[in-house]
């Protein structure tokens, strides 16, 4: 990806800027949520939201994360930003373990990683003016004060394609697409290097989605940003991502370059997922793998390979062994006993 040596990245120390060093690295990242039941509210079960996820995100790239609802993709995004604390495993930002940082150091690092939320209606405080919303981060991080804040807010509004006059108005005066632009401006205010975009276009109308996707691509190119792009819409991910991680029941089951994943999906789940997407072309008749059954609840993850009860190719061993994410010989990584030796 282009733009790795941007103005933003250029200001960081040289040691952090080794070209191939990942900006984000997770090692065995796991999050279990206790389910409380009964009179005393004792945990009776664990929801295994994210299970042993190890991946790297390189500077300037977009890593897409896809999967169905409940697969843990949003939890993964929040763990990486340490908006949630992991049950086990580590997250490294530019080589520094986020779990070991003190509050002040963490706050400083937070400036460099931001999030854009799915729902532009509930993620903006309805009582704050847009200018205050966007400028809040600048004040919290003491980046600007007084007139500088207003100047920077104007600059950000222009960058995301909103009129400067928007600063004096309230979120409810804007449409969904415009609100998402406000959310993006708010994230960009503190000049982050890395942004988690959690389903940023799924709440928007079709004709507006394209505007926001293009905006995200433009600012990535101009500012040299790195994205973790979470979505359930595979065609949007195909459009925007460089590499894609497919998640199922908390685990990454396939991690590959975009072209590899979409032209020759390897994991049986990836294949089924891709074939299930309706294509806007009535002449296209594809081989569809219709999966039977529902996604099991993450509080009752099946033994062995979590996909085996729905897998059309499952063999006996799949019931017992948990497959490791490994290279089947073509550079990608797949967690499937049938694909990897």
């Amino acid at each position, binding site marked *: 990806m282009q733009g790795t040596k941007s103005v933003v990245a250029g200001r960081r120390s040289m040691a952090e800027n080794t070209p191939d060093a990942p900006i984000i690295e997770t090692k065995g990242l796991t999050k279990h949520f206790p389910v409380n039941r009964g009179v005393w509210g004792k945990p009776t079960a664990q929801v295994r939201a994210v299970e042993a996820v190890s991946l790297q995100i390189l500077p300037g790239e977009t890593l897409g994360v896809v999967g169905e609802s409940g697969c843990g993709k949003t939890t993964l995004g929040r763990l990486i930003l340490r908006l949630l604390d992991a049950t086990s495993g580590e997250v490294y930002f530019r080589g520094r373990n986020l779990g070991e940082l003190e509050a002040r150091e963490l706050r400083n690092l937070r400036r460099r990683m931001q999030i854009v939320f799915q729902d532009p209606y509930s993620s903006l405080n309805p009582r704050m003016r847009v200018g205050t919303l966007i400028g809040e981060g600048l004040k919290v991080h003491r980046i600007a004060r007084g007139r500088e804040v207003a100047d920077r807010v104007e600059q950000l509004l222009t960058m995301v394609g909103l009129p400067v006059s928007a600063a004096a108005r309230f979120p409810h005066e804007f449409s969904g697409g415009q609100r998402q632009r406000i959310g993006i401006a708010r994230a960009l205010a503190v000049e982050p290097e890395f942004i988690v975009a959690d389903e940023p276009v799924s709440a928007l109308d079709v004709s507006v989605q*394209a505007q926001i*996707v293009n905006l995200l691509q433009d600012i990535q190119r101009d500012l040299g940003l790195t994205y973790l792009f979470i979505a359930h819409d595979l*065609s949007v991910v195909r*459009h925007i991502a460089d590499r894609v991680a497919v998640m199922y029941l908390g685990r990454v089951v396939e991690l590959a370059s975009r072209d590899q994943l979409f032209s020759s999906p390897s994991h049986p789940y990836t294949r089924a997922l*891709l074939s299930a*997407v309706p294509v*806007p072309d*009535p002449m296209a008749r594809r081989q569809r793998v219709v999966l039977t059954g*529902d996604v099991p609840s993450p509080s009752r993850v099946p033994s062995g390979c979590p996909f085996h009860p729905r897998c059309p190719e499952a063999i006996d061993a799949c019931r017992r062994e948990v497959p490791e994410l490994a290279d089947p010989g073509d550079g990608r990584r797949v967690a499937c006993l049938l694909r990897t030796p």
Partner: protein
Amino acid sequence: MTEAATPILEVRDLCTSFHTDEGEGRAVDGVSFHLKRGETLGLVGESGCGKSVTALSILRLVAPPGRIGSGQILLSGRDLLALSEPDMRRVRGDEVAMIFQEPMSSLNPVLTCGCQIGEAVRLHQGGSRKEAKERAIEMMRLVGIPAPEQRVDEFPHQLSGGMRQRVMIAIALSCNPDVLIADEPTTALDVTIQAQILELLAHLQQELHMAILMITHDLGVVAEVADRVAVMYAGQIVETATTADLFAAPQHPYTRGLLASIPHLDGDQERLEVIPGRVPEATSFPQGCRFHPRCSLAEAACKATAQHLENCDAGHQVRCRRAPVDG
């Protein structure tokens, strides 16, 4: 797909408006279409284009401040808008049934699934509770719910989203309706579950030979299930054609823009095409052609005069004075 020459459902010049503080909003303004037995018509558009209000109008379920202003809704030749409320109640769920987008909020949380499926059967066909329960089990089996004998006594919260949508379909189909209105039936579901539900609907349509009005914003879903498509924008149908024609040669700039703005799963686009601006509110539809403020082909005349749906090809109508466009 089609066999009967006369349509089972015909909507003529339907107008539904809402009185709000900002003035009268014509959510549906002069919509006409027809539907034959065994056929699926896709009604496509973005939020606020009037597609759901069209569906609710057919069943006369528009709640105040909404009001059906004019038009005819002919079901096998009988105008539903002229029926008394008790007569209309006999039509709903029996001859015309509907499935809604959000299965969790449209099912009653305090009644078992079997009770809700049986309710429609008992209301329209009479019979004992026991018979209704048996019919409910039969319907649940038909829509592919595993172990229906147990599930019939379960409550909606005990089921997954896909299973709840199957229960909704079972309720809708329990009285063998002639027309099924499906309002975004798969929007709340994951793609693998969506594939299951769409396949189920297609299978049941063949078996029961009903007409389906499929309302969706997803052009992919339309391409997959519909025989014909009507595209709505700002309360009006702007283009209607067979599915093959619409996707091969879209004529209205809005349809073309919509098709160009979605990323494709196969094929590479450097940049997505964009329709500038946003969908107008029903209380402030633009003068003249309602799409002109967002249209790249708009000229002075587009702003001056309202457009009518006109034939541009056999079975292909478009509401645009610049059509047909090349390419």
